[in-house]
């Protein structure tokens, strides 16, 4: 390390000013122009977060959003060298610091997580899967699209406009999100606990429809009857169309 403490300190003072807006005099700095650094740096953070969390931006009042972003950027040292993954750190920061805003909007953290998952799924590296897509749904092994995420929420952030979510909506909500192989678009499907378990089992290994139905039913202490088998078949056919099942 060749840097002198004075140089390091000047660099730190400029960086701190960009993050917090608190300026400590630095020799040689043009104080008329230095604010542009603060503006430009802050704009990158704000634009990236707005792009990742449009539903959250729409929910919050401008002051709530701006104050939260400002606090995040001041207090949290962003770790990712890739700015597009930085919004995940925004979620983690809010989860760890539990600001008052989360009391006003008890579903806010879930909304932000839901929005982040969509970004993550859309952008994540491709996952290979072996399937031929030609077999019989009723009898052949089924393969789940590996580019999926199973998620549970206590508020219906994926179903309802966030402005209309209230504490009375609190419950258990399950969904699967998956990326369409051709277009790369992300699809959401609301699930029952039974179907969640079934997809969990399918993600462990390819299975036939009957095997999946009986193993899932066993986990729920149920005996599969014809009605259940038919419902599972309908679901599987629908998911095949939606390319969650390949």
């Amino acid at each position, binding site marked *: *390390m*060749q*840097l*002198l403490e*004075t*140089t*390091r300190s*000047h*660099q*730190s003072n*400029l*960086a*701190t000013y*960009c*993050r917090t807006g608190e300026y400590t005099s*630095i*020799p*040689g*700095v*043009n104080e008329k*122009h*230095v604010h*542009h*650094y603060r503006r*430009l*740096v802050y704009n*990158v*953070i704000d634009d*990236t977060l707005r792009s990742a969390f449009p539903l959250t931006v729409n929910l919050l009042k401008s002051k709530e959003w701006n104050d939260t972003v400002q606090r995040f950027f001041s207090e*949290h*040292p*962003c*770790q*990712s*060298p*890739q*700015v*597009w993954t*930085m919004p995940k750190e925004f979620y983690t920061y809010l989860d760890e610091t539990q600001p008052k805003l989360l009391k006003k909007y008890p579903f806010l953290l879930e909304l932000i997580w839901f929005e982040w998952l969509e970004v993550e799924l*859309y*952008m*994540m*590296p*491709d*996952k290979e899967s072996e399937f031929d897509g030609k077999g019989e749904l009723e009898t052949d092994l089924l393969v789940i699209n590996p*580019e999926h995420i199973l998620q549970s929420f206590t508020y219906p952030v994926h179903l309802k406009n966030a402005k209309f979510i209230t504490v009375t909506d609190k419950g258990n909500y399950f969904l699967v999100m998956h*990326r369409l192989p051709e*277009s*790369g*678009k992300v699809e959401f499907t609301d699930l029952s606990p039974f179907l969640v378990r079934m997809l969990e089992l399918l993600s462990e290994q390819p299975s036939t429809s009957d095997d999946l139905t009986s193993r899932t039913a066993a986990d729920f202490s149920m005996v599969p009857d014809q009605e259940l088998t038919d419902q599972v078949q309908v679901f599987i056919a629908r998911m095949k169309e939606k390319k969650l099942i390949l």
Partner: protein
Amino acid sequence: MWRRQMWGELMTGIGFRKDFAEEFLNSEILLPDFIEVAPENWIGVGGYWKKQFQQALDRYPLFVHGLSLSIGSPDPLDLAFLKKVKTFLHDTGARIYSEHLSYAKCDNAHLYDLLPIPFTRDAVKHVSERVHQVQELLQQKIALEIVSYYTPVAPEMTELEFINEILNTSDCDLLLDVNNIYVNSFNHKYDPYTFIDGLPLNRVSYIHMAGHQKVSDDLIIDTHGQAIIDPVYRLFDYARSKLQRDVPVLLERDFNIPELKELQEELDHLRTIRKNAIYPKVYATA
């Protein structure tokens, strides 16, 4: 130390941006010789954007221009990420890896923008040491870009002295961003032509051209959001004639993306200047 690549005819490129990727790939309107991307925007990306990027790679040679190396930072280099960059350069067959002579991380926090390094002797040594470290890890030469800046920070020397000292003590190339030199000359009141004369032009391996925004009577911000203005084209013309050799040039446009034909017109303009500089018209004399 490192062997310089031979460029052939890969001379006029465009920054590949998601904003116009689809139209660019599905039309014959914008026809660069190469494309440039920031590795930070593409490493670890799959799905739709990976497909688009692969289509672009299938058609165009790639130049890579990083954002987060933070060569002048007081913080240690992020070697783990640099290894990912190395893999990215290998996997994409990238022809060049350039970065900014600035810092973008400090106190263990990324700022995602380019802050000016103090023009000090210790910073020269610091940067030179890190250039060596980066080139050793990547096993290739990098090119450092002279960045635009809006205020000096505790300078002990001039900008030109600082850049020359770094090039004297580092085995790296120079990315000549002509717009940045114009912007800096305006903001810090010096002659851009004299500045170019003072650079070791034999070290220039790559040129960037872009537009900017004048935000006040005494300040221009390097936005990459406007068309290139004539004084910057003239400075480019001057730099090209001084170089006396062909060097790849990139058109950067990151915001306010215009119709692709407007970008193509800018590329054509750059090509014309390049040809005139390299193959000057010969007039018969009596």
